């Protein structure tokens, strides 16, 4: 029992007022009469010194006022919800990469979870409804509540592990989606972090099933191609087991073996394996050949630019910026021939074609380049026609802060940058970083990438002056710039991304997409002539549109998800392999039942009774 609006208890003071009125009325007034003789024959009054008379009217008024006051205060009772004949259950599955880990029998953790869920479905009472919710980077409802258990079984069987890390926030979102269910069964391969299960709501009956057993895993943590003919590439391999592991590693370049080596990794250690230098450019693949539990992190791809000495132009009015940008370009590809110039003194040569033009704080002078990186664009004069290829500048902020990179990936803490332009980006540009400034109410793009008719276009809206890109405290800005440069230098029909990223590929009409697991699906190109897809699996994607083929390599590595030695709860694993832990099971669903309607009805009844009594007394008085 409780009160929804305890402040309204102030209305109970009306009871005190009523008592005061009755006490005052009870105090008999003194009436002075000519003589007591005339009252000799009046019967003795029934007046005594009792504190409270048993006046029915008084108690009726007390009841009416009390009931109304408690109704205003929102009196309610808490009661365990009566067992419903048909209950709703939710099955929540972790689809993180770890759920794809296989045991010695070749059974994945998701298979174990699936079997447990199917047993749960088999024990369901007729009429019970089930919903299926899954999560990895985000929560998805795979099956809305349904009493057709066959549909639910199909939805459970259709679940596949992704190449994504399972985020705690996604788990909370999934439990929120499952709210309203009588019972929620969560199947995951690692214990929930903190109070994540509380997201199911107060009183929810959540049963957590941890599936899988600790397993050993090796992973390719990083791959760098080096420079063709100049610098060797390197692969970082990591051991997630508590004992030393042999690791057989292969490095291929465009499906040609570059190196095959076996190393011993110390427990929970990592090693760097050098290879090359590569003789030519292409797609480099590093793969672990040693069998382990998780396959998604055994492959990694990278693009090695060719040794061809491509020409790159850097235009900036600031010599320091020119120098910084040239250093970064050469760090990405040492074979580049970088020309740095002041835009005021630069003369466009029609015959000169550049692989990339980096234009900082100046107009595009009409350089012939396959790709352009526009940094801190120059706004054009008001009422004047915009220069060719110039992006519309809406405003300038004195201090920008980078808050997210990629698609909604929040930085752990905002990165303070420098003055930045606020750009009204066209739709063909994909925002890859966003930020804000202290005074603004909304965010604005800090970096974007896309393709126009002249080729690839990258945009960085903040200013790299004062050696911002080389500041060790602002490494994220350098990484963002390097990624953009790499994408600009990469061929258009080849993209390398991380799982979870959204990528877009030029397409005409409908494109066929072949996922790493071999599944095929069709996707229609949008009005910008691009097909967008979210990379949920690690591996090679192929997008075929009107005879044009584009390849996307999705790399997966997450140190937390790849660690498959997550401890199980103390309870011994059950025969099915799933350990069940019940959370918040004791109280069961609690139902709050407001009593206001009953209290108001009581008040009305008391008032009607009082009115009837008064009317009867009036009639009796009139008759007397």
């Amino acid at each position, binding site marked *: 029992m409780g009160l929804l609006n305890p402040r309204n208890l102030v209305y109970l003071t009306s009871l005190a007022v009523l008592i005061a009125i009755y006490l005052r009325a009870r105090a008999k007034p003194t009436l002075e009469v000519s*003589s007591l003789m005339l009252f000799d024959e009046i*019967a003795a009054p029934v007046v005594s010194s009792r504190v409270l008379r048993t006046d029915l009217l008084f108690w009726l008024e007390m009841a009416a006022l009390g009931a109304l006051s408690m109704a205003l205060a929102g009196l309610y009772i808490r009661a365990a919800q009566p067992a419903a004949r048909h209950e709703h259950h939710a099955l929540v599955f972790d689809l993180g990469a770890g759920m794809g880990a296989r045991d010695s029998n070749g059974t994945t953790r998701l298979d174990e979870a699936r079997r447990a869920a199917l047993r749960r479905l088999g024990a369901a009472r007729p009429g019970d409804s089930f919903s299926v919710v899954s999560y990895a980077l985000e929560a998805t409802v795979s099956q809305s509540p349904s009493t057709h258990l066959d549909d639910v079984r199909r939805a459970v069987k259709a679940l596949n592990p992704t190449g994504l890390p399972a985020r705690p926030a996604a788990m909370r979102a999934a439990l929120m989606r499952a709210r309203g269910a009588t019972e929620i069964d969560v199947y995951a391969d690692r214990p929930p972090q903190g109070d994540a299960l509380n997201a199911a709501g107060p009183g929810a009956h959540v049963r957590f099933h941890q599936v899988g057993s600790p397993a050993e895993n090796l992973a390719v943590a990083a791959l760098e191609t080096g420079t063709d003919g100049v610098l060797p590439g390197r692969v970082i391999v990591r051991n997630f087991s508590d004992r030393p592991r042999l690791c057989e590693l292969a490095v291929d370049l465009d499906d040609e073996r570059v190196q095959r080596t076996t190393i011993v990794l110390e427990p929970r250690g990592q090693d760097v394996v050098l290879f090359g230098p590569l003789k030519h450019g292409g797609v480099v693949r590093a793969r672990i050949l040693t069998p382990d539990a998780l396959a998604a992190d055994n492959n990694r791809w990278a693009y090695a630019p060719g040794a061809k000495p491509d020409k790159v132009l850097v235009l900036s009015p600031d010599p320091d910026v020119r120098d910084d940008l040239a250093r970064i370009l050469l760090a990405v590809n040492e074979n580049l021939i970088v020309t740095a110039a002041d835009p005021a003194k630069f003369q466009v040569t029609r015959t000169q074609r550049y692989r990339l033009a980096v234009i900082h704080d100046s107009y595009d002078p009409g350089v012939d380049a396959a790709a352009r990186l526009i940094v801190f664009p120059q706004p054009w004069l008001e009422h004047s026609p915009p220069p060719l290829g110039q992006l519309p500048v809406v405003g300038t902020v004195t201090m920008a802060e980078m808050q997210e990179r990629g698609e909604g990936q929040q930085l752990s803490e905002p990165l303070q940058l420098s003055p930045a332009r606020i750009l009204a980006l066209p739709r063909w540009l994909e925002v890859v970083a966003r930020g804000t400034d202290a005074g603004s109410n909304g965010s604005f793009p800090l970096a974007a990438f896309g393709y126009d008719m002249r080729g690839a276009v990258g945009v960085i809206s903040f200013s790299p002056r004062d050696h911002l890109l080389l500041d060790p405290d602002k490494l994220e800005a350098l990484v963002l710039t390097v990624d953009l440069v790499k994408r600009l230098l990469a061929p258009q029909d080849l993209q390398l991304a991380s799982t979870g990223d959204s990528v877009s590929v030029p397409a005409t009409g409908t494109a066929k997409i072949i996922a790493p697991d071999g599944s095929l699906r069709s996707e229609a190109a949008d009005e910008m002539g691009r097909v967008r897809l979210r990379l949920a699996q690690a591996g090679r994607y192929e997008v075929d549109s009107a005879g044009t083929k584009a390849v996307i390599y999705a790399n997966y590595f997450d140190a937390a998800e790849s660690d498959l030695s997550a401890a199980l709860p103390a309870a011994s694993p059950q025969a099915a392999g799933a350990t069940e832990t019940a959370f918040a099971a004791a109280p069961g669903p609690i139902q709050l039942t407001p009593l206001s309607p009953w209290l108001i009805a009581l008040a009305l009844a008391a008032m009607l009774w009082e009115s009837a009594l008064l009317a009867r007394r009036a009639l009796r008085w009139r008759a007397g």
Partner: protein
Amino acid sequence: MLEARAFEPDFLRRLDGLVLGIQRARTARSGRRMIGRVQGSGIETENFREYTEGDDLRFLDWNAFARLDDLMLRTFRAEREIEVTVLVDASASMGLPREDDKLGLALGLAASLAYVAMASNDAVRLGIFTSARHGGAQLETTPFHRRREVYPAFRPFVGAVRCTGDTRMAEAAGKLLLDRRPAGAVALISDFLVGAGEYEQALSSLLSGRHEVKVIHVLGEREANGAYPPGNYRIRDSESGELCEVALGAGAAQACRQRAERLSSELAAFCAAHGIVYVRAFGASLFDEIVMREFPRLGVVR
């Protein structure tokens, strides 16, 4: 207040045709020379005297003036006269209930009787009785007045009466007898909210003084009907200060009515037994009816 009604000219005009109903033979007072209005054949010319300023010109003897060229005034001798005393109870009980204006009714009736008595050239005085501060009865009376021209002289006395003290009716009657005035008529106006012994002793005393006694019993409409607002009350006697708790309502009102009726009937029975005229005047609203109809009906006036 109702007593003012007794001094209104239109009301007094209606009383002009009335005379006090005295049953006994009027006492002739030999040797007493009175100057008064000629009132029918009962008045005889007694003497003449010289006119002095202020005398009533109607009594000038114009024949003597024609013969003697002197202003001579005829004087008469009353054939019979009686002293009329109208006693009003001015105890505290007469002031309650205030809405009933019981004292106003009593004073109005007293003044009306005085006015009527003056028609017979009788000597009339008003008196009130209550209790004195130091104990005992307090009796206050006006001087005797005989002519209606001086009737307004009663007004200051009537207007100054305030209800206070106990009802000392018997003692007041005794004090009245101590004046050793000749036997006359005494009208006693009271609510008689006293013990039967009190008013019996008072009336018996007056009768023993050979006075012709008339009793006018006044009560307020509210107290006669018991029409108090319902509820529980603590009631206090206005004279004794005694307190009592009662529950007023329809039943109590009935009991009050019965008690007032019983009080009235007992008093009326005593009066009838002793040849006293008893008039019941319950309610100030009945003032005109009492004066114009009840008084003549019961022989108080004719």
